């Protein structure tokens, strides 16, 4: 069955070509069928391969298919080939499965668009690139997919090109991604320079023998890789493009900017786990950037009113969790969270899309409210996913987030753990704020708009995704190791023999006459302690409930207050006092937080990062102005510059 691997990316490519070239001619219905059909076929093939992989002994679960030699130059060799192993299988399942549901959803959501075919052509092209990314068997293949998904994302963000903001957002995304790509490409070059190959199997096999644990080369490689990952996965400091990317159609936000593409960075780090394991410094960088992003984005999420932006910051925050997990060496937990996040976040985005669809394009939560009456299916699915992301037992997010927190604590780093817990609290708070503002309370909907439930083609994917979000946690039940299906599944890929690597590094260092640093700490394996785990679970459940309660207090209780004031004159004083309590609360807790995060958002985000981007643009513009003076159009001047260049070269040569 594995020899069919090439079909998986091929189907979406065919779909993209058919829709791109003949989309206008074959009509909307056919476009939808082609787009979904091709992805469905990919999904089926993936399922077949999953079946076969399950029946293969665990140690032999690695299949490589080389279609042809892509580049062979000197001793450099890169194949156009695919690799099927447990890790890529997980990613393929997520990409094709969630991708298929979102494709189906898009049929309904994009139904009234003029350039329907264009949307599906891009979307299929995206699927193709993403599958190349996760299936490639070498770094260059990953890079092809990496660039391809970036390009598709760019096109899809700028899909509503009539809006200037959409074009700007697309450009911003592309430019920021390019910064990351730059680092990634350099990392590939460096890997080639060190190993003479860029094939995963060969590199990861050779790494423990060739590299010294914690030495510069491996640290540089991993840091470069991680910079690449921050660009694609929207981490500090390259995250600002993701909230802006919400200018794109909502299915795109769900597929690309929540479930699949933005997690490519996590996939890459996990794929290179061997290298990261050998670079403790990089690991802590990954962990702290991840944890920092988790909190930072969450605080911003609390202040947003655009429904999709809240979700976008939430995505940034959740991916931060995944990196936090990678950073503490809990790669399984990272992938676990990646999978569950794909389920619930796709569902949340699609749900928000359903809300927006029902409100005819309204995205401001201040103009929503009480939608649970009008959109029951959307509401239920949304609520399930929100409970999942908030980490309520027994939904999927609970297990995956808890596993990350557990590993962070077990790693011995309480700061990281604290970051995680704070993030969990904030997540629960702002996600329920979202739910309460949108579905509960008084309706603030524009009276001219009549909210309605979305068609079946849109709600069905929602229901399936909500189901997955609810039960996806069964993939990794903690407590007993044998129950953790995902862990067992990924174990062969992530296996890393720290002890022998350490020995080897010591040996290598010894040969050049240097002393090995104290590495023994790396060898300590945390003991499994079921009681700690259970108490942690209870703690995080408490934390999540606290967050929800807080949201309930602020956004369900408080909005009703003004009405009560007007109605109940007799209880004015009391209400006033209560109001003062609220004021006090606002002044001491909510307001500083809001102000603080607004400040962070405005200064850190708008001025810091955007300022840097704009600054570069300004410098380039200034250079251009100078170029105008130089490139004056006069032959005489051109000759003069040739002579000056000559003099410059002479000076360098002789002085």
């Amino acid at each position, binding site marked *: 069955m594995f020899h069919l691997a090439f079909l998986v990316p091929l189907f979406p490519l065919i779909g993209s070509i058919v829709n*791109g*070239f003949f989309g206008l001619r074959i009509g909307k219905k056919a476009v939808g069928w082609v787009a979904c059909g091709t992805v469905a076929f990919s999904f089926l093939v993936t399922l077949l391969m999953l079946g076969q992989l399950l029946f293969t002994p665990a140690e032999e679960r690695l299949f490589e298919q080389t279609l*042809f*030699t*892509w*580049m*062979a*130059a*000197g001793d*450099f060799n890169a194949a*156009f080939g695919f690799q099927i192993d447990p890790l890529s299988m997980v990613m393929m399942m997520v990409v094709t499965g969630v991708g298929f549901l979102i494709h189906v959803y898009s049929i309904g959501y994009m139904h009234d668009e003029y350039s329907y075919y264009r949307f599906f052509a891009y979307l299929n092209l995206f699927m193709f690139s993403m599958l190349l990314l996760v299936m490639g068997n070498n770094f*260059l293949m990953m*890079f*092809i997919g990496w*660039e*391809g998904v970036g*390009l598709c994302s760019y*096109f899809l963000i*700028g899909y509503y*090109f*009539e809006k200037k903001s*959409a*074009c700007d957002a*697309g*450009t911003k995304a*592309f*430019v920021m991604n*390019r*910064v990351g*790509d*730059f680092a990634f*490409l*350099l990392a590939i*070059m460096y890997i*080639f*320079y060190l190993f003479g190959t860029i094939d995963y199997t060969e590199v990861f096999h050779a790494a423990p023998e060739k590299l010294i644990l914690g030495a510069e080369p491996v640290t540089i490689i991993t840091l470069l890789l991680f910079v690449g990952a921050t660009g694609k996965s929207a981490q500090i400091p390259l995250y600002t493009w993701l909230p802006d990317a919400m200018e794109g159609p909502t299915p795109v936000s769900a597929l690309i900017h929540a479930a699949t593409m933005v997690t490519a960075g996590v996939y890459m780090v996990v794929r290179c786990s061997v290298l990261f394991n050998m670079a403790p410094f990089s690991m802590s960088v990954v962990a702290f950037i991840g944890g920092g992003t988790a909190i930072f984005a969450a605080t911003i999420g609390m202040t947003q009113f655009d429904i999709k932006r809240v979700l976008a910051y939430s995505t940034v925050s959740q991916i931060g969790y995944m990196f936090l997990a990678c950073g503490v060496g809990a790669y399984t937990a990272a992938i676990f969270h990646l999978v569950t996040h794909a389920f619930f976040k796709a569902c949340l985005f699609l749900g928000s899309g359903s809300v927006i669809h029902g409100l005819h394009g309204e995205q401001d939560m201040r103009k929503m409210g009480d939608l649970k009456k009008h959109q029951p299916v959307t509401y239920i699915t949304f609520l399930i996913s929100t409970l999942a992301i908030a980490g309520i037992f027994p939904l999927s997010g609970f297990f995956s987030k808890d596993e990350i927190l557990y590993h962070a604590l077990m790693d011995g780093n309480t700061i990281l753990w604290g970051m995680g817990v704070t993030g969990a609290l904030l997540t629960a708070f702002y996600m329920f704020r979202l739910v309460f503002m949108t579905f509960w309370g008084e309706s603030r909907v524009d009276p001219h708009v009549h909210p309605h439930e979305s068609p079946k083609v849109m709600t069905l994917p929602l229901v399936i995704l909500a189901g997955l979000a609810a039960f996806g946690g069964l993939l990794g039940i903690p407590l007993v190791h044998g129950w953790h299906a995902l862990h067992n599944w990924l174990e062969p890929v992530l296996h890393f023999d720290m002890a022998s690597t350490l020995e080897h590094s010591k040996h290598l260092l010894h040969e050049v006459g240097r002393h090995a640093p104290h590495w023994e700490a790396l060898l300590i394996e945390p003991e499994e302690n079921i009681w700690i785990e259970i108490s942690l679970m209870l703690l995080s459940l408490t934390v999540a409930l606290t967050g929800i309660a807080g949201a309930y207090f602020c956004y369900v209780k408080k909005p009703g207050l003004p009405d009560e004031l007007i109605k109940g004159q007799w209880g004015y004083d009391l209400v006033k006092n209560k109001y003062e309590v609220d004021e006090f609360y606002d002044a001491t807790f909510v307001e500083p937080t809001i102000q603080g995060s607004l400040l962070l958002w405005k200064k850190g985000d708008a001025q810091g990062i955007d300022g840097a981007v704009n600054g570069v643009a300004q410098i*380039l*513009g200034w*250079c*251009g102005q100078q*170029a*105008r003076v*130089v*490139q004056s*159009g006069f*032959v005489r*001047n*051109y*000759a003069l*510059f*040739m002579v*000056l*260049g*000559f003099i*410059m*070269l*002479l000076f*360098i*040569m*002789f002085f």
Partner: protein
Amino acid sequence: MEHIPSPTVDLVSLAPVLVLSVFAMMVLLVDLYVKRDKTLVIFISLVGLLMTAISAFAKFDLPVHSFNDSYVVDELSVFFIMIFTLSSALAILLSIDYNKREGIRMGEYYSLILLCTVGMILLASSTDMIMIFLGIEIVSICLYVLAGIRRSDPKSNEAALKYFLLGAFATGFLLYGMTLVYGATGTTKLGLIAELIREEQIASKPLMLMGIVLLIIGFGFKVASVPFHMWAPDVYHGAPTPVTAFMAVGPKAAAFAAFFRVFAEAMPVLSPSWESLLCIVAVLSMFIGNVGAIMQTNIKRLLAYSSVSHVGYILIAVIAKNSLGSSSLVFYMLAYAFMIFGAFGIVILIGRKENEMLEIADYSGLAYKHPLMAISMSVFLLSLGGMPPLAGFVAKFYIFSAAIKEGFVTLVVLAVLNSVISFYYYLKVIVYMYMKEPEGEFQISLAPMTVFVVVIAMVGTAGLGIFPDPILYFTQH
């Protein structure tokens, strides 16, 4: 009376030059008898190029040195002849419809392109500085005339004049450089020079170094590297578009071939002294080319500046000076030929008689009126920027890995950084095509030959990107 010994002549290795010269003259003659319709002339030119390409394989057991070491047939030159014939054929195909539209009815046009190709072949196959000098002059003189062939167009005039004066100026420097190298070594044969340098028998090292600096200026001008690039945007802008495409590929490739032979093959031992100079020129070319391109609103000027930045990348191949360097140089030029001809093909297709539609704003909304055209233009531009899996990426990666192998890490980092920057302006064009409302009407008549060129270029760009291996294999053996 002293008897003159008969010279060593090997006409077989000279076959491509002879064939092409004969065809060039045939074109001239036939042109005398056909007045209006140039189909026959074009046909003969294309047949000539085909025959030339075939005759390049007349020699086995490469390399063959002939004419007292002034001419060589080796893998590099054979491959370059392929690039030249290909680019000239594409240029002629592009010209057919363009010339009809713009009213260029001179048969000499085709003959000049063929003669220019002869010059390029000579340039790429010469191992004697006198021959290199003559080759460069043949190429340049043909190009001066081709740039100014639209005599009634002030822009074309200006392009010819600027190119000519600066070109002749640069020739002076190049010639002086060659003279000093001759003075320092006592020979003009590159093979001998290499030997003398290796055995440290140069009469005067400062003289040699001075010569090297002057040579860099001369070659630097021909390939349009900073700071000797300033003619390029103006000339590319003013010359007829097919000539611009031609100029950006063939002659540049030929100059690079000579550049490589003189520096990497004849003077590798002296590399410590010229490496740093070329590194500076390369880095400057990348940066200034990119910055210049960002500011442009005219597509031809944008492509001109982008070609300056590409010169920066290609120079890395010369600096790397290993065998990987030469094959990556060849591969890059081939990939570049496809991308450039494709992009200029689209530029020609979009133009019309009264309005050549050269402003980038003229491309607004192209994707909605002519999606296929927009897609191909995007592919060419993205390939120029180095997007995998297109030809441009493979070519860049290949050059960079050649340089990495020699340890030029900083240079490669800067080059990668630049290829990142370059996306900014390629993307600008794509943004106009995909994300702007159409401003005016496109009146595009799909001229069959130009479309043919674009299709070939498309196949080449995508094919070299996805299946580069056969060509890579060929460049290395």
